[in-house]
């Protein structure tokens, strides 16, 4: 279990933590944060492999991931503003009127 495999395993662990966070935490903002955690875990895994194999694509990928993540967060914030303005609450459970 050399350093690189440890780091990839760590990335996997962080990834699952992020996923569980999305499922468990009730607060909207925290849910968004957990999504970002998942993306960071992926970046970690990319970087470790890039260093191990000394290849460029992994590094390039990190930049693209962050670009995409930032756009997504921007959009998410906009939608959250609309949501909260209507329901005045950050609890995820209140937004359940689409069902069946």
């Amino acid at each position, binding site marked *: 279990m050399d350093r690189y495999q440890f780091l990839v395993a760590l990335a996997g662990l962080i990834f699952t933590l992020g996923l569980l966070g999305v499922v468990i935490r009730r607060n909207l903002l925290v849910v968004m944060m957990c999504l970002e955690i998942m993306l960071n875990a*992926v970046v970690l895994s990319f970087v470790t492999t890039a260093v191990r194999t000394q290849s460029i694509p992994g590094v390039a990928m990190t930049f693209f991931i962050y670009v995409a993540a930032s756009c997504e967060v921007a959009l*998410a914030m906009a*939608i959250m503003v609309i949501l909260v303005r209507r329901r005045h609450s950050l609890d995820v459970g209140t937004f359940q009127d689409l069902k069946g």
Partner: protein
Amino acid sequence: MATDLIYGLLPEHLLLALILVLMLVEIFHGDRKLGGVLFTLAAAAGCAVLAVQLSNGYTVNLVPTEITIDRFALIARLVILGCGLILGICSLATSSSCKFWMLLASSLLGALTIMDSAGFISLFIGIEMLSLPAFAMMVSGDGTSSASEGAFKYLVLSSVATALILFGLSLVYGVTGSLSISVFMATVNAGGAQSIAATVIILSGFFLKAAVFPFHAWAPDAYSSVRIHITAFLASVIKAAVVLALVRIFSTIALSAEVVSVIIVLSVASIFYGNTTAIKQGAFKKLLAYSSIAHAGYMMFALIDSTGGRTEALLYYASVYALTTIIACACFSLIVPGDRDDLGQLDGAFATHPVASVLLALCVLSMAGIPPLPGFLAKFLIFKSVIASGHITPAVIAFVGSYIGVIFYLGIVYRLFSTASVPAEAGEAAGSGLVWSGVFLGSVVFILFMLVPGVFHSLLLTV
């Protein structure tokens, strides 16, 4: 080389130019109709270019591991752009501001980049560019109050999907050391636990985006919360793009046994789930959502094919499915003006809107897979390749699933032709002329698919 860069990616450049122009128009508060017209022109030009390139067999490998223009890319882009064009024309009447056209154009641009990608980086960028504008489109304009909730759910699930895909890619990168698709294709069957896990994770990411059974939950809420022409966009173009992205990745290689069994279970489950739940749905958009889950199941079913018929089957299925959904939504919007969408509105529609209801009936029956209509051949191609590659029992189970599917499609046809209720006012919605032109173009292509399926099919064979 430079000319190839321009000519090869010409449709993308056209869309990009369109977006910039639309921004200028938006800044200078130009006439609202201008956005739509510009979009139609750009999309039509893009399709024309693609058609020309396709006819004289133009293929070039622009950036070795990132972007290639081969026959599949040309045909897939033509399908996507064609559906985008028809959808654009159909929603000319309802969408007011230029923002909608910008978002639509950027989303289409994302889809086109997916089709060209030979490497995972451009594929990833394409997927992001495909879905982010969709969220914006859902909430923009005079969106219904619940649209934001639907958009939010879609956003959360879609970002989870992207995270999954990226994580899969990182594992693949760990194994192969490069992010090009061809290298991935070569090693995917290497059999190591990590590469199997990587494939499964990537697949589940795409399944989440395509709303296959266990990952489907966002689709009904997202589809039913937005205006009908956006639902059409979500159900047709985005789904087709995701499916064709999968084809781009896996193209014709046979997957390993474990992955195949996973895909079989998921696709059969989603066929059954989609078709059975759709029976008891009261709203058209919800019904469309569940039927799209079922169709996702059919499309994913083709992935288990090992005789090489997968690309042609999926291309044909995705294009027929996308086209039928667009026409169906357009006809529905013609029959039921405004945004009410409960199926009760369709009762006795034949009396008031004969042509629209006949077209809606044809589209619905084509989705059910009733023979003379193109939907049947699409299903036939998939089942043919599945049975040819030896999976007979899953095919038979899928047959039973598709049998259940016929019930709710017939329910719609029943409402259209039932003479029970007194027909409501027959007023045509404002600006329906434009929608009619879109519907007309769509149905011409639909009839073409029906009468001359062979041409499209042989074209595909040369992929």
